[in-house]
């Protein structure tokens, strides 16, 4: 009971990190494709949209890490060892993204340095979700080999494969899709809205294409993903719902119902994640050495109990504050257009 509740909080943290911080990374990815067409304006909109919220959005990841190492320490340890390299690259991306974004916004002088900030901001906006997806793929694939098998088998092969990178690219595309739809509501200029709508369309098409690729590469790397998927009602159901919901989503975008579109795209991407959670459940990390499930990796009960108290009390403080923040910056000036 304790274990499932803590695992639920872990899933919620990952879900909210993806829906909130994911969009911040997606916005950085979209900036790469801003083209020459009103690039500076797009950049302004993205900075304006991310500024007040990105740090709060980022904390969901820290929460997920804390839940992992306190609630499921053995799985955290195994993940940290096997995925040392992609996690290190992800951290590299997190540091550069956060710093360059802030430097760009607060640098008192505007000069050539802004080109470097922007370049690093865009690159790290790709790198971080790519590596996040790579690790997620690796945790499902379970190719981690015992240490005696050598460096390559133990620390590289578990993630350096087609499947993991497909999941990584899929994560990037999904985040870009989220960002594009969210950003429509950040501007009242119909031409700018048109730009973000087109980005959303492209990202949506790519998400479907790369989603299929994930299933193909899984088979190549020896994971019967389609069969695993078909065996789980929740996964199949969320996949179908995610597809169906695209229709009202695009109607909402067409009709300029920006808040409705935001909610629908969040539900859409959320459903994809729920499908993945069910696929993974109850395993945290698959591996040839020792797969760790939420049950086998769980900390003793007193730890889980106090962790849950902290999470519940924390939520009571955090959620009203978070809603207040989003209300001030995300609900007040949109929709009126």
């Amino acid at each position, binding site marked *: 009971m304790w274990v499932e509740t803590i695992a639920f909080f872990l899933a919620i943290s990952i879900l909210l990190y993806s829906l909130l911080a994911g969009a911040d990374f997606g916005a950085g990815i979209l900036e790469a494709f801003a083209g020459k067409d009103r690039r500076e304006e797009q950049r302004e909109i993205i900075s304006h949209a991310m*500024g*007040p919220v990105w*740090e*709060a959005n*980022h*904390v969901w*990841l*820290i*929460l997920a*890490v*804390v*839940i992992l*190492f*306190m609630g499921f*320490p*053995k799985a*955290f*340890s*195994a*993940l*940290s*060892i096997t995925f*040392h390299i992609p*996690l*290190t690259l992800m*951290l*590299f991306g*997190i*540091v*550069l*993204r*956060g*710093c360059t974004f*802030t*430097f760009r*916004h*607060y*640098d*008192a*002088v505007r000069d050539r340095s802004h080109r470097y900030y922007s370049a690093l901001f865009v690159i790290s906006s790709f790198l971080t979700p790519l590596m996040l997806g790579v690790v997620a793929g690796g945790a499902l694939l379970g190719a981690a080999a015992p*240490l005696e098998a050598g*460096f390559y088998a*133990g620390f590289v092969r578990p993630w350096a494969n087609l499947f993991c990178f497909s999941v990584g690219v899929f994560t990037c595309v999904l985040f870009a899709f989220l960002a594009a739809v969210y950003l429509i509501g950040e501007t009242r200029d119909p031409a700018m809205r048109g730009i973000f709508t087109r980005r959303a369309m492209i990202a949506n098409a790519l998400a479907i294409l790369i989603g299929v690729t994930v299933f193909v590469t899984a088979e190549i790397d020896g994971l019967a993903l389609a069969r695993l998927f078909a065996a789980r009602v929740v996964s199949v159901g969320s996949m179908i719902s995610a597809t169906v919901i695209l229709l009202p989503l695009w109607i909402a975008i067409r009709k300029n119902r920006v808040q409705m579109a935001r909610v629908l795209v969040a539900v859409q991407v959320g459903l994809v994640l729920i499908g993945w959670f069910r696929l993974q459940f109850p395993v945290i990390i698959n591996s040839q050495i020792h797969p760790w499930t939420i049950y086998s990796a769980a*900390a*003793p009960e007193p*730890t889980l109990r*106090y*962790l849950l108290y*902290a*999470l519940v*009390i*924390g939520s009571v*403080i*955090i959620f009203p*504050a*978070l809603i*207040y*923040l989003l209300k*001030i*910056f995300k609900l007040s000036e949109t929709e009126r257009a």
Partner: protein
Amino acid sequence: MTDLFAARSQMAISLGFHIIFAAIGIAMPFLMAVSHWRWLKTKEAVYLDLTKAWSKGVAIFFATGAVSGTVLSFELGLLWPKFMEYAGPISGLPFAWEGAAFFLEAIALGIFLYGWDRVHPWSHWASGVVVGISGVASGLFVICANGWMNAPAGFDWVNGEAVNIDPVAAMFNRAALQQGLHMTLAAFCATGFAVAGIHAIGLLKNPASRFHAGALHIALFIGAVAAILQPLQGDRLAKQTAVLQPAKLAAMESLFHTSKAAPLIIGGIPSEETQTLRYGIEIPGLLSFLAHGDFEAEVTGLDQFPREHWPPVAVTHVAFQIMIAIGGLLAAIGAWSLFALWKNPAWLHSRKALRLFACCAPLGFIAIEAGWTVTEVGRQPWIIYGIMQTKDAVTPMPGLVYPMMLFTGVYLLLAFVVTWLMVRQFRHVG
């Protein structure tokens, strides 16, 4: 370079980098809140300018601190997976609370930085205060976890496994409170003096500036109060260390041999080989008095511990001496500054005083780095004192020198850029 040494270096660099940003993140919101309060009360534009100028610095430092803190939460696992496997369930609780506090801090900061014309002025002011309070809380929680490494509690160690886990007892371990107070005061002291020093430079260039004068007074007041309290708090922490970690205290003081009426040693270079200290000044009996409140008391020396359990004596000793010297100096300058603020603030504006403040700007942070070195190096070879050695906690991944070089490069670059940005901000407003 061995993998263990690479891992320790990476951890040291990451923490050494983060601790500066964390300390600024703890203290700076309060400086800002004072200035902001004055603006709202007096409507003197200079305080609005000051609040806005400081808030830009806070935004840069907070973002850098937030992401470098994230790196640390992962690095605990990436570099020390065995440690986290044991420590996570026992002493993870303060991290959970730290997460909550940090969350609140990030939300409040978003409202503060971007909410100038969106929320009621006093709600806006309050959001700035919430940033500060949650920053202090975050720091205290993290120190609870660090205190646990120095004074493990809340479990029984049976055949290399932790049983009877009590996360609350682990969180409120015996080292937590004293270490937490010491670090919090250090944050206020270092930040106060650093900000005062920067605005002292501004006043040297432009003596008539009301902007810099206002900033100097606020920063100096906060830094000075913390600097005066710090030696008193440091004394309590040292007394506790004498009980909880006698080997650390012995290394801090280069006390190789257990002795009664042990002398306090000032300066000097210890040699582990010959177990002697050269060039130090000895004050007879004072260490016994400081550690145990009695000039004749016996103080445990390193000879009570097997050689392989000694911390690196020279590093610990020298770092401790640096911290004490700076702490003493800043306390003295702080006392004089408070006296001047009370008697005649014009004294603070003499060129000599301003030059002194400018020179003191980096000292508090040097003391923080030195103090952190004392507590971390002084705990070696243990990662969990008396329970688990650092060498047994390191990840089996080979080639750790590469991530170490990557993060060293990134942090050097960021340190350079942040410094450069501050200079640009300063020139812009000055």
